[in-house]
């Protein structure tokens, strides 16, 4: 096997933080692809440029996604990465594994790929970095093989204009604050929409992320078209002794908690803490900083926010509150139904490469809300509009005028 000398990237084996170069070298010891990847990478470092071509469409039978085609611009120099596709494998909810399945994945990667992986891709998938077109089918067969026990059978993740691999925070598996079963919701949505996931039929990508509370440990508000964020409807229960415990540990309750509450709804007289729950916006600050001393209570569920996307090309959009409160109980029919309605509307109203958040901006919130049967609510806005320009449907004015006639009769205005 060709031996590249790699003075530049060798620099990246120094230092305390684990080195990806060391990892690629590990793989390169026994894998030609990994070895040429190493060579091309050194060449990129030397020339200050990447050398990968546009992804051509490659994939496995019956799927339109899950594979990102990659080809080297320098096949003569680095023949073993002429084809260097990535395989996206849909991770299990919360990225929990047993060593058994990890070894299975590792073996498949070695057998058919470069021996280099991404644990995990930013969307959440396990990513096998680098394989040939010829090996795609075998990889897929081994991943999904009917002969294997259920827990060893994996499927591909999403790519292209499809539903993308959903992901979730570890929620109920290892967190006291979750307001719904993020893990199960992520699993069921993934299963329900296998077709949308594997066969790109949308105008652009659509991502789900499930977070159990406003901490948003899976960055759902900033990285998914549909951000499902856990919340509750009920008072925060207070364990006054536990607060003392935190004070002993050095927490300055007044400065660090009371003063930092966004709605100033906490009071603390040094003896007892009080919370005006009607004013609380459930931001999680006090709860997380005084862990185990404060606990949400009452009805649990999630706020559904829609429309986030990365900045390109008209600037970042964060997800907008659409459903203030949805009970999130398996089998999550309400959410599934919402998804279908959203997608129908999106489909009808978008051009290729338009994310749903963009389309909501182009078409206006009303068109979207009407399509999903949601009435306008103050929850939908931080503040009402600022300009004197807005639309009326013919019937709107008639309704308003009828209302006014009623008022004339009753003598009381309904604003």
């Amino acid at each position, binding site marked *: 096997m060709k031996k590249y000398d790699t003075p530049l990237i060798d620099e*990246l084996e*120094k230092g305390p*933080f684990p080195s990806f170069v060391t990892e690629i070298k590990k*793989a390169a010891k026994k894998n030609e692809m990994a070895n040429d990847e190493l060579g091309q990478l050194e060449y*990129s*470092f030397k020339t*200050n440029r*990447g050398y*990968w071509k*546009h*992804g051509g469409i490659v994939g496995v039978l019956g799927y339109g996604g899950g594979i990102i085609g*990659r080809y080297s611009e320098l096949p003569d120099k680095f023949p073993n990465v002429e084809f260097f596709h990535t395989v996206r494998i849909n991770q299990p*909810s*919360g*990225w929990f*594994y047993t*060593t058994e*399945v*990890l070894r*299975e*994945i*590792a*073996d498949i990667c070695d*057998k058919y790929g470069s021996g*280099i*992986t*991404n*644990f995990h891709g930013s969307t959440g998938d396990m990513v096998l*970095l680098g394989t040939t077109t010829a090996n795609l089918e*075998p990889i*897929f*067969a*081994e991943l*999904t*093989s*009917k002969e294997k026990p259920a*827990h060893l059978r*994996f*499927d591909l993740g999403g790519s292209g204009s499809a539903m993308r691999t959903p992901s979730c925070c570890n929620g109920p*598996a*290892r*967190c*006291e604050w979750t307001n719904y079963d993020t*893990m199960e919701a992520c699993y069921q949505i*993934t*299963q329900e929409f*296998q077709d949308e996931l594997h066969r790109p039929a949308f105008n652009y990508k659509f991502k789900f992320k499930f977070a159990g509370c406003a901490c948003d440990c899976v960055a759902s508000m*900033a*990285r998914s078209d549909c951000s499902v964020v856990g919340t509750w409807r009920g008072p925060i229960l207070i364990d006054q002794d536990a607060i003392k415990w935190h004070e002993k540990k050095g927490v300055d309750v007044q*400065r660090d908690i009371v003063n*930092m*509450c966004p709605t100033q709804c906490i009071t603390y007289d040094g003896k007892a803490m009080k919370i005006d729950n009607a004013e609380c916006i459930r931001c*999680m600050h006090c709860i997380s900083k005084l862990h*185990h001393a404060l606990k949400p209570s009452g009805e649990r569920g999630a706020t559904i926010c829609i429309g986030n996307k*990365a*900045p*390109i*090309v008209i*600037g*970042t959009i964060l997800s907008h509150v659409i459903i203030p409160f949805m009970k999130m109980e398996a089998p999550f029919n309400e959410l599934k139904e919402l998804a279908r309605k959203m997608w129908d509307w999106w489909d009808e109203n978008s051009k290729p490469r338009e994310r749903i958040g963009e389309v909501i901006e182009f078409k206006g919130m009303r068109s979207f809300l009407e399509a999903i049967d949601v009435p306008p609510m103050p929850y939908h806005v931080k503040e009402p509009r600022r300009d004197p320009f807005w639309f009326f449907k013919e019937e709107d004015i008639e309704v308003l005028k009828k209302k006014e006639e009623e008022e004339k009769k009753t003598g009381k205005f309904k604003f």
Partner: protein
Amino acid sequence: MGFYGDRKLTEEECKKLRETDIGPPHYKHFLPPVIQKNYGKWKDHEILNPGLMVHIAESGDKVWSVRVATPRIIATDTIREVCDIADKYCGGHLRWTSRNNIEFLVSEEKNVEPIQEELKKRGFLMGGIGYRISNMVHTQGWVHCHGAATDASGIVKSVMDELADYFTTKELPNKLRLALACCPNMCGAVHCSDIAVVAIHTKVPPVDAERLRKVCEIPTVIASCPTRAISPDPATKSVKINAEKCMYCGNCFTVCPAIDIKDPYRDGLAIVIGGKVTSQRTNPKFSRLAIPYISNEPPRWPKVVGAVKHIVELYAKHARKYERVGEWIDRIGWEKFFQLSGIEFTYQCIDDFTFMRETLRNTPTFKWIS
């Protein structure tokens, strides 16, 4: 060795064995017994050290999580190594976090110390839990993406080496989230991170007219441009780009390979800061531009590293407890931040695109810094 050992499946076998749309296996298969038992019934957690936390269930049961950093790109042998460790101390149970760290899930107290010993011995870096710096979310870079204006993993390694203490030991006022994207597509969390590096192109991309005619659809190319910089070029039967209007986003390149956005000399890096994702205390915040351009300097990007460190240290010194970077700067005012940091304020910092009206200052009230 895996289910099929090193035997490669034949085409026939593939057809026979493959099954589509099965989705991922159910997570229950992978949860350690203590989590299965206490699923959804957790009461509390304690951070015992920067690399170790324990979660306590209502039942009194506990699960310890030992967190180690990874470079995200890992070789299969490394996967096997962590598996060996998990088998030895965790009954074979482990997980990855949303920031690409590994968490070993220990159910028996007696294993808590030994696993940390062994991880140290094997040279794993434990940390990232609590109010400090965790792993840096990043992207493909020269390792695998076609559009990359820089290498992702290389900068991340360089930055994290410099800030390793903040991962393993040092405390900060709150979590500090770092991210990197290797082009403006921003595959990651750059747009809402405390401190992030985004690779940018800075040159109007040259058009290979001949190739474009062959491989691209002219209307699609024209439509791809957010600033309407692209127009048909009758001369070449291709398109031309108006240099006045192009802000190098690369979207035309994404839809058409005949437009070459990559430029070794001009591609560079920008530092954006003050973003956050969580809704704690304040609404999620966007990262905002602090430094518009630093040259691409492999293998260790000293200036990028220096810039990030400089801002981390300012934050450590000046922010109030529990303030995130953006909360701190929004409180003191951006004019104060530029004064404190000595960072030069450039034209590029003034929005002239989507958010211009929202971000210009429309009040005579501000702090004097000069």
